[in-house]
């Protein structure tokens, strides 16, 4: 029995052993499989995420590409603007003047009434007063152009009742060595401050008495050569020096009847910026030439000029004061005597607003050929500027003379300019 029992036990236990062993093996396999599956799932998830990211990125890129395409389409497709009802239509057929560059024409008319009929020191062809009529003082025709890269030309011709006069006509050579500009031709000399001004740019209607008495109504001018030097910055804020030789007489001071009629002119200008609104200039001038037809006796005229200008930059269109003063001294040698005479002018111009200016001037002048004869004058003036190119002037002037009757004048002046040559003073 005992061996059989053992046999039966073995038969019974054997499958259990086999079954248990195979079950253990199956569990391990399953675990392994599960692990592998998990890994695969992870990989798949990773791939899905990557694919998702790629899709998202592609979608973003597509969206951006679409936006950029849209942007380009919209940028190239300008919105049509409806025509404004207030649009003005112009043919342009009458506007060919734009093809004529740098041609100017100015008109200067006046009405004058004066108590004196005297025009003792003025040529018949020049300004006369007191006849109570309207006059054309001048029509000024101007041409300005660059001649080539190195020079430019300027011509101003004055037409008046009495005829045609070359006011100025010169070539200007620019940027020469020594910081020099040279002028050749007929021009107004750089003597003092107001001598170079054309009539239409003067702060009052007429040239100051001292300038008229010393140089005539057409300024110290002539045909010649002038060199202008910009000095090194050793002085003031800026300095200029002018050296000129002109031929041609100037009434009362220099002869125009001689063989050469040479006049030497020099001017030194010292400019100071006092602050952002104010500047100051002081200049010294000299002119020397012969005063008789034989060219034996010389005249020297010296001058000092001061200018103070105040114009606040943010209000320059509406506020400003400009004060100019000039002193002139003449030393005239004659056969039997030397005559010294002097005179001055002092002018103040105030800008009241964009359109109105008020100015006043005091004058004193001895006559250079007879210092015993003298004139004193005051002027009060209102300018109405319709635009930069048209102004109207109302002026009262009183002149006291010790050799002739006094004069009170009322003047109404109309001044206009077409083209680029305006009434600019600086």
């Amino acid at each position, binding site marked *: 029995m005992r061996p059989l029992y053992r046999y039966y036990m073995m038969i019974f236990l054997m499958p259990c052993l086999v079954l248990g062993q195979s079950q253990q093996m199956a569990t391990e396999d399953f675990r392994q499989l599960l692990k592998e599956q998990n890994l695969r799932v992870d990989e798949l998830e990773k791939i899905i995420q990557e694919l998702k990211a790629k899709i998202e990125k592609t979608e973003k890129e597509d969206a951006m590409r679409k936006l*950029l395409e849209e942007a380009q389409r*919209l940028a190239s497709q*300008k919105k049509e603007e409806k025509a404004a009802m207030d649009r*003005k239509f112009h043919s342009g057929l009458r506007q060919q003047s734009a093809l004529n560059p740098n041609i100017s024409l100015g008109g200067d008319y006046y009405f004058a009434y004066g108590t004196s009929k005297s025009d003792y020191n003025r040529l018949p062809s020049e300004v006369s007063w007191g006849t109570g009529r309207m006059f054309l003082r001048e029509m000024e025709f101007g041409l300005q152009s660059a001649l080539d890269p190195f020079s430019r030309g300027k011509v101003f011709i004055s037409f008046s009742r009495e005829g045609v006069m070359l006011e100025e006509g010169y070539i200007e050579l620019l940027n020469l060595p020594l910081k020099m500009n040279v002028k050749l031709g007929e021009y107004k000399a750089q003597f003092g401050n107001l001598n170079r001004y054309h009539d239409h740019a003067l702060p009052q209607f007429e040239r100051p008495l001292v300038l008229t008495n010393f140089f005539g109504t057409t300024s110290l001018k002539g045909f010649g050569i002038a060199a202008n030097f910009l000095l090194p*910055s050793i*002085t003031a804020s800026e300095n200029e020096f002018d050296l000129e030789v002109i031929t041609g007489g100037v009434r009362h001071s220099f002869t125009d009847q001689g063989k050469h009629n040479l006049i030497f002119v020099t001017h030194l200008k010292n400019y100071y910026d006092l602050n952002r609104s104010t*500047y100051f200039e002081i200049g010294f001038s000299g002119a020397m030439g012969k005063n008789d037809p034989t060219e034996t006796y010389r005249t020297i005229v010296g001058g000092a000029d001061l200018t103070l200008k105040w114009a606040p930059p943010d209000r320059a269109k509406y506020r400003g004061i400009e004060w100019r003063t000039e002193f002139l001294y003449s*030393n005239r040698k004659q056969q039997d005597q030397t005559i010294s005479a002097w005179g001055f002018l002092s002018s103040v111009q105030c800008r009241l607003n964009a359109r109105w200016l008020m100015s006043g001037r005091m004058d004193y002048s001895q006559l250079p050929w007879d210092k015993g004869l003298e004139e004193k004058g005051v002027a009060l003036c209102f300018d109405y500027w319709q635009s930069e190119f048209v102004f109207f002037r109302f002026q009262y002037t009183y002149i006291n003379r010790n050799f002739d009757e006094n004069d009170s004048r009322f003047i109404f002046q109309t001044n206009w300019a077409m083209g680029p040559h305006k009434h600019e003073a600086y």
Partner: protein
Amino acid sequence: MKRMNVFQWLILISCVTLLIGRSSYSADKIKVVTTFSDFASITKEIAGDLVEVEYLSYGDQDPHFVPPKPSLALKLKKADLLVATGCDLEMWLPTLMDKARNPKIMDGAVGFVTASPGIEILEKPETISRSEGDIHVIGNPHIQTSAMNWKKVSENILIGLKKVDPQNATIYEANQKAFVDKVDRAMFGDALVDLFGGDQLESLLYAGTLFDFLENEYQGEKLLNKLGGWVKKALPFRGKEIIAYHKNWSYFAKDFGLKIVGFIEVKPGIPPTPKHVEEMIQLIKDRNIKIMLVASYFERRAPTTVAQKTGIKAIYLPISVGGLPELADNFKLMDYWIARINEALEE
């Protein structure tokens, strides 16, 4: 001892005045002179400390009328580079250039730069006639009031700087690129510039389609929500009708969608007449206009009268950099303009 005569005195005094002057020469840097402070500000952005920059017109000055003072000519005399607008705004400049007699900066020379090439000039006159007032024959020259124009200005200044100072060309190029980016970001904000770039946005702005474009969605959000910078700040007045004193603001209005429907001046450069002021008052009332832009250098009587009779807000704005002490560069100036207009609208 012989007494001196008047002429000897004159010579002596002349010598004395020669001695009481002063010199303003400085170090051997490249010297750049610009007509306006706005161009100077841009030049500083590009060139930094490599150059010395000066300008001729004050920030609060009327750019049409700068007296050609000798001291300004002296600045030009020393300049290696001159930057001007290039339209006929600076009619006072030729006089100064003649006085300066500096061949380096003459028209067409290496040292002469105009700021406007590449900019679409607005309001080119159909009729060149003074009956239209003090017109500019090339078109509206007030290009500085547009930030987009500053980019073109900087390109032109860069060319000039590279010509007169080729050694530092790479620095100038890098700085100019950075400046353009700075302008774009100030104009549209960082987000849109990062997405589309400044040039694309500028094209859309000038095509008049920027806001149509910004209606698009990106990443589930309207692009309009990403708008920043001055364009966003100016949204409160976009599309509004305004009055201006002068045609200073045309480029600004184009950038920010303002509609200028009338001017206080009768015509450019012609001061207002009582009749014209009355017409403007009626226009403002009829169209319920709320804002009037006036460059600070203009008179205030006519704008004040119009404001009192209509309730319109007259906003006086400096036109250039430095017009107020705190407006040290173009960016601050544009910030100021937009802030002042918004303030006026909120009042």
